[in-house]
């Protein structure tokens, strides 16, 4: 009985302990690559399968942006990722404010100077709806 309790405790505790570790090296690497003069705010882990062509990017998140602040959006791909992570930023009215994919060119960094405080929608996907794994980091530029 005592052995069972010890095993049960181990099985319960280890997953909790493991889940508590900051074990996402891609996130850390991406955050630290945001460059000097920035402060980390949030990370978004994006993992998607192959998708069909559609009008909107598939992974949507909400993020608040404040007037007179400059934010840096850094996009990183896992080494094994087939697709390249892209991002569109739209305001709460759905108006496009920025896109990391412009005229056939992709950017891994967007520096966004906000002049209108509000809730913004961040749309992530992989270029041409390819499958992929990546991380989007939002940092504050000081």
């Amino acid at each position, binding site marked *: 009985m005592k052995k069972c309790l010890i095993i049960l405790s181990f099985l319960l505790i280890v997953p909790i302990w493991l889940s508590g570790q900051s074990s996402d090296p891609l996130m850390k690497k991406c955050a630290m690559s945001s460059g*000097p003069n920035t402060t980390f705010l949030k990370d978004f882990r994006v993992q998607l399968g192959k998708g069909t062509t559609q009008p909107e990017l598939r992974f949507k998140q909400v993020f608040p942006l404040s007037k007179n602040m400059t934010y840096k959006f850094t996009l990183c791909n896992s080494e094994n990722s087939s697709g390249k992570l892209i991002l569109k930023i739209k305001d709460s009215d759905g108006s496009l404010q920025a896109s990391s994919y412009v005229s056939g060119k992709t950017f891994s960094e*967007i520096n966004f100077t906000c002049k209108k405080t509000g*809730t913004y929608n961040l749309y992530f996907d992989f270029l041409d709806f390819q499958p992929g794994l990546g991380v989007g980091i939002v940092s504050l530029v000081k």
Partner: protein
Amino acid sequence: MSVRLFLIQVLVLLFIFSCGGSNKKTAEFVFPEADSIPVSEAEKLSDEAIDDIGRNISSPVEIANVLQRMSVPFSAGYLASSIDASRLSTSFEKAFKLGILGADLGYLNMYEKTGTSIDVLSSIKKLADGINVGQFFDFESIKRLSRNRANLDSLLLISQNSYNQIDKYLREKGRGQLSALMITGVWIEGQYLATQMLKLHPDTILRNRVGEQKIILNDLLMLLAPYCNVSPQFTSLCQDMQDIKEKYRDIRITFTVGDPVMEEKDGALVVKQTEESKVEMNDEQLAVIIVITNSVRNKLISNN
């Protein structure tokens, strides 16, 4: 990522995002009033909507950043040092004060007061353990990083990420009420810091930031609404937040419409909005908000 450096970015225009004319016009920014969203409706909000609202609370690091840009000196007197983590018994108190201390930690870290932050971290550890989320804090690493200012960027990253993980975990595990309390605690402490600093260091950007909280406060009330009747403590907190909301009622936020301008610099895309929000808040309204924020915050942290 040195915290000490403040550089102004020089932008070179390469192309304009839209060829359309700017045609600026003024429009009223319309908010749903809190009392137009009854509890019964808030309870119907989807998990996704609740999740979105929770994420819609700005980081206290942003407030600290504004204070630094204003060259406002650090003041330990504004920290919630009266919180005695070992005396708190309920999950409500622990989660709410975890948020309060999280905001203080962000303030301390941004000002590189890593020595003091170790004391705050000890309290945070007790509170986090008390609601079974201590596993998301690697306290030993954070303490080690705190001893050397050269590690400040890593310290900020780990600290901020720990709170993000806790928030996500609580939601996923159906403990959304604790997440809502933590977020409320972060917000009230950030609002307290901003309003107290405004008294001594008047500044337009900070003043506008306080006025803009009308938007955030509305979301915060929606986040709390499903839990306002679950306990007397929650009911009291909801009433306190509603009292603050009431003081914001006549503050107006308008905006001008414009197209964003995009350019390429050093391989990165640089975007500048021309659309702009504007806060209309007079001195009397601001004074009332400073008073109510101070009153509510002090009441909530003294309730050990």
